[in-house]
């Protein structure tokens, strides 16, 4: 078996020819590139207001409506659970627990103010 492999010889020759290709950019191309460079570029990342960013993330204004409705419903179910939800919570947790959010001992749990 010889070391040379005809298709590879052809390929290697083609690669060598391709490597010799080194065209000088002509004036028209340079002018196009410099015209692009002279066009004012964005100065920094677009500083969208956070609301616009959020809107973009969740898919526009219509999504806000559903999001708001779901949030209100969730809060309401938390405040005034319908009996079915309460029963379910009972079966899941065994007991209902109520916490007074504004009680001193809750805010200062572990001996330190929670916001300190």
């Amino acid at each position: 078996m010889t070391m040379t492999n005809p298709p590879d010889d052809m390929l290697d020759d083609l690669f060598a020819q391709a490597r010799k290709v080194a065209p000088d950019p002509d004036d028209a191309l340079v002018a196009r590139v410099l015209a692009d460079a002279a066009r004012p570029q964005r100065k920094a990342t677009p500083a969208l207001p956070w609301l616009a960013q959020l809107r973009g993330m969740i898919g526009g204004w219509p999504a806000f409506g559903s999001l708001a409705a779901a949030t209100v419903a969730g809060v309401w179910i938390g405040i005034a659970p319908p009996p079915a939800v309460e029963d379910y919570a009972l079966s899941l947790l065994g007991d209902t627990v109520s916490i007074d959010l504004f009680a001193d001992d809750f805010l200062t749990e572990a001996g330190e103010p929670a916001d300190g």
Partner: protein
Amino acid sequence: MPLARLQMTAVSDPYAHTSDEALLLAYAKGDPRVAETLTLRLLPRILAQAMRMLADKTEAEDVAQDAMLRLWRIAPDWRQGEAQVTTWLYRVVANLCTDRLRKRRHVALDAVAEPPDSTPSVAAQMQTRARLRALSDALAQLPERQAQAVALRHLEGLSNPQIAAIMDISVTSVESLTARGKRALAAIMAGRKAELGYDNDEPT
């Protein structure tokens, strides 16, 4: 106007010892002079890379302009020290070229133009062009990552670690991509051997 003027300025290039990255950051800060220096430095290499992969002047020029445009655009967000400008450009040009090659796949393969009977040097030139176009068309038939790896290795003559950095893969992956790509390329090109004049001795 521009190239001649650029070459004149190159003689007394005040940025001769300034890195591409520093120039890019200066450009982002609004120094218009550095755009010329960057263009003079980077455009020839970009154009050559595109020309080698595409074997088509118009397409290569469009890719080169597009790659430079992306460079201008990324300048304000360029993260210092993260990548070399040249590495980034190799990647952008390779991607733009495989995008073009993919579109070419869906077009009927052009019949390679027959060299018109004229002086031998013109005929040889035509044959070289036909061969390089055939190579480019064969690259278009490879999976894109293989085409990029083969082009960076064999058309640009880059080392495997350089290619790994450009393609953001391991050196082992580069080796496997180039090996498979070259084999596939050889298989495709084998069918066009006679047509491209590789049956006889090399005309020089």
